[in-house]
């Protein structure tokens, strides 16, 4: 999700701990200690049954952090628990984490002002808040121990999860109940970074063990008594509408219980997935494609290319472009085409709902609770308070579950409503549904032009971009300024390079194909366009790719310079070709973090094979280097998969041409390069790592490939070839 999204939404006031409750746990054994934000102080206490806070201390000494951020593989459960544990002086072994339910009033992303995960903001927005939660709980435990032991609070110590005074020692659990009755400190002191003992050190993630023995619970794993599995027959083209359907054959399939019309298509309800699959196959559905996207990908590219050529509206302009080109000794031009991309999370989209006696409870990897909860409530005709969303682990998202349109919430709500009775329902998508389902990374065309003078200076730089807007037509539309959606071109403007003159243009295109943020959003294409085109320009100017970039950076671009220099040093950069291998470099700033990568590439039967990647990242203070390295490794593999293979294309008439992993291939283990990551030491507040590892890989790969073969990559992916 976009960094602009983060900026554009109203920032919420920093919610600090201020209220606590004592609660008998479900088992009747656990005393729980809750800390809720200050924002609720004036309100009546929430029902004690709602686990509505950030922290729970059990009688067994466990400390459970309720994560306001969806865990979809990027590590927020572990990150938030680290921040709490640091200030609480807990031992890492006693820490646990679980998803917090949907509740904007408690669990807002402070960068958005509403509950949601995205834009690589999880740690950045929680940095102060979660440490405050830990510090507050610590102060209250100290106060409780001091009162119990009759000693001054200043003499009570906490270290590694043990409260002590003189010879007396205790775990947290014994004092949890009493601590909850202690006065809340107004502003408990936070540690000086030099005193950090957890922040900055490697720790395995809290959710790892459950993900190695089959016990981790994802949406598709949820079972409820009497639950029916629902598959939806969906339109064959984007924008096609349902005319009629015949469900006789479907209802004759053993196990199929009912068939209903919903907004998304025709829903088949069955006992088990296989019956639902067979039932859906037996449906006879007639669609009307008159209003649908009928253009093929080739036709859409021609239209977008013409719009990019026309220049679009100006989103950035500096200097005299005409004079810049007039002063040029050579002019370089290029067009680069980027296809629609599916996120293809390994767990396809799904949701479980149970409606009973006028209340609804849901379980799923919900990424935008702020939009989803009211959407479900409205679809069911229930008050929002009667809809509970349990946010559980998601088997990947990469942006796919963060829907401004809340279309999955709408769908699961309609499924329950259309059933016409209480009950539990699980909606799931097959891989084919997922790949055909839209909400793609926008198809995009960049047209670039640069002028170079005799001294090798870049006198003019223009880039016009044509694509659909992600925000337009969604609740995020209000954040577009002057009709401009920054997620369409972020990363192409505000470049820290010295150009004699520059113009960035954007042409907003229309299509019924729904588009969405996709791991690193605008940077998925802008970094590629800018950094591959610049590589050509530098070559034309007779400059080395690394030194040329460093020379071009503005003096204030210190963090950019540091990641470039570090990646170059790690790779022992000696120019773009060595011993029959190509080397390419690229960098990008996204979501507040700076990442540079060098890719080493071999020519294997006319196709690029990446053998090694060196990655330098500056994401501010490194909370958990293990997670940062994992996200760089994963981002690199995800981006390599994309550059080599990923393309959703529409055929003549508008139907999607891909259907499963045989024709939308994923990177496999034998194609994964060795990866070395170096994290720049920093004392700046932390920024994101989930997305920033993605943008530089594609351009660094293409630059290495061009160095090796002379081939310019003007369309992604690289020419397709099976990898199975």
């Amino acid at each position: 999700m976009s960094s602009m999204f983060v900026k554009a939404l109203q920032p919420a006031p920093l919610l600090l701990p201020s209220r606590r409750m004592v609660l008998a746990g479900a088992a009747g054994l656990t005393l729980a200690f809750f800390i809720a934000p200050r924002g609720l102080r004036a309100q009546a206490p929430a029902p004690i049954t709602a686990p509505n806070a950030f922290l729970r201390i059990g009688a067994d000494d466990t400390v459970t952090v309720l994560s306001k951020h969806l865990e979809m593989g990027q590590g927020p459960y572990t990150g938030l628990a680290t921040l709490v544990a640091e200030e609480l002086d807990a031992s890492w072994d006693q820490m646990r984490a679980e998803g917090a339910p949907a509740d904007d009033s408690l669990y807002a992303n402070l960068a958005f002002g509403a509950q949601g995960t995205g834009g690589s903001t999880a740690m950045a927005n929680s940095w102060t808040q979660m440490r405050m939660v830990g510090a507050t709980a610590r102060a209250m435990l100290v106060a409780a121990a001091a009162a119990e032991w009759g000693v001054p609070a200043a003499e009570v110590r906490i270290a590694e999860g043990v409260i002590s005074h003189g010879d007396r020692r205790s775990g947290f659990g014994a004092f949890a109940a009493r601590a909850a009755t202690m006065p809340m400190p107004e502003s408990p002191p936070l540690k000086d970074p030099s005193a950090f003992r957890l922040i900055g050190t490697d720790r395995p993630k809290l959710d790892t063990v459950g993900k190695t023995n089959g016990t981790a619970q994802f949406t598709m794993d949820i079972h409820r008594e009497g639950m029916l599995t629902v598959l939806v027959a969906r339109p064959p083209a984007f924008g096609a509408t349902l005319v009629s359907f015949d469900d006789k054959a479907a209802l004759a399939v053993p196990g199929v219980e009912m068939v209903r019309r919903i907004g998304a298509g025709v829903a088949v309800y069955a006992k088990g997935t296989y019956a639902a699959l067979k039932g859906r196959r037996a449906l006879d559905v007639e669609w009307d494609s008159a209003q649908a996207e009928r253009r093929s990908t080739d036709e859409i590219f021609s239209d977008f290319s013409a719009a990019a050529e026309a220049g679009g509206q100006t989103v950035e302009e500096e200097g005299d472009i005409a004079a810049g080109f007039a002063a040029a000794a050579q002019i370089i031009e290029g067009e680069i085409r980027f296809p629609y991309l599916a996120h293809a999370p390994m767990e396809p989209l799904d949701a479980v709902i149970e409606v009973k006696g006028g209340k609804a409870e849901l379980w799923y990897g919900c990424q935008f609770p702020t939009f989803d909860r009211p959407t479900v409530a409205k679809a069911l005709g229930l008050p929002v308070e009667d809809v509970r969303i349990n946010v559980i682990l998601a088997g990947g998202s990469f942006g796919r579950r963060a829907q401004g349109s809340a279309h999955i919430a709408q769908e699961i709500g309609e499924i329950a409503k259309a059933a016409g009775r209480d009950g539990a329902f699980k909606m799931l998508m097959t891989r084919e549904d997922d790949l055909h389902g839209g909400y793609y990374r926008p198809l995009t065309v960049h047209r670039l032009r640069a002028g170079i003078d005799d001294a090798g200076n870049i006198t003019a730089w223009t880039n016009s971009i044509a694509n659909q807007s992600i925000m337009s037509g969604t609740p995020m539309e209000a954040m577009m300024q002057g009709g401009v959606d920054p997620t369409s071109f972020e990363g192409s403007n505000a470049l820290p390079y010295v150009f004699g003159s520059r113009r960035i243009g954007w042409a907003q295109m229309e299509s019924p194909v729904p588009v969405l943020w996709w791991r690193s959003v605008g940077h998925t294409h802008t970094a590629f366009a800018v950094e591959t085109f610049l590589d050509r320009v530098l070559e034309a100017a007779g400059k080395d790719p690394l030194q040329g970039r460093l020379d071009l950076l503005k003096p204030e671009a210190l963090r950019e310079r540091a990641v470039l220099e570090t990646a170059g040093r790690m790779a022992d950069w000696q120019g773009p070709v060595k011993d029959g291998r190509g080397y390419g470099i690229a960098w990008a700033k996204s979501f507040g973090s700076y990442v540079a990568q060098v890719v080493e590439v071999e020519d294997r039967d006319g196709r690029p094979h990446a053998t090694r990647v060196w990655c330098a990242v500056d994401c501010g203070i490194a909370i958990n280097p293990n997670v940062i390295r994992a996200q760089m490794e994963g981002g690199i593999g995800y981006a390599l998969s994309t550059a080599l293979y990923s393309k959703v294309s529409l055929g003549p008439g508008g139907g999607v041409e891909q259907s499963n992993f045989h024709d939308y291939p994923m990177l496999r283990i034998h194609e994964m390069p060795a990866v070395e990551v170096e994290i720049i030491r920093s004392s700046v507040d932390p920024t994101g790592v989930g997305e920033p590892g993605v943008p530089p890989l594609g351009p660094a790969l293409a630059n290495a490939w061009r160095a090796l073969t002379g081939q310019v990559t003007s369309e992604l992916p690289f020419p397709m070839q099976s990898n199975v």
Partner: protein
Amino acid sequence: MTQFIVNGQDVTLDIDPDTPLLWALRDDLHLTGTKFGCGVAQCGACTVMLNGMPRRSCVTPLSMVEGGEVTTIEGMTGPEIEAVKQAWVAIDVPQCGWCQSGQIMSATALLQQSATAPTDADIDAAMAGNVCRCATYVRIRAAIHDAARTLEL
């Protein structure tokens, strides 16, 4: 009526014999450690052991399992699975986690069949059928080498 053994227990299922083993395990036996990723033998998320050999349960009809012995991630025992799980945790392999049961089943099968420590090429050959969308491949490779060391292969 299909009779077979799952994780050491006798099971009788009175469902369509065409039902893929994957859905029988997940929907009827509530063994949800085995995952769905593609349904067409392209990703390996659904890997189980059938009579001791790794098998894609999404394309294995129940009828083919009659009288056989199925082991899922929940029921795996022995030094190889223990070494693999330990290495997976030590190296912190999983990200989203959805593919990992399948990765672990394939890795365990590789180590069960290896008389000597697997090479990178052995790992590529054994694991290329398992997709990880989070691209945890660097760590999968490291963890398999680590498990092989634990097993003193």
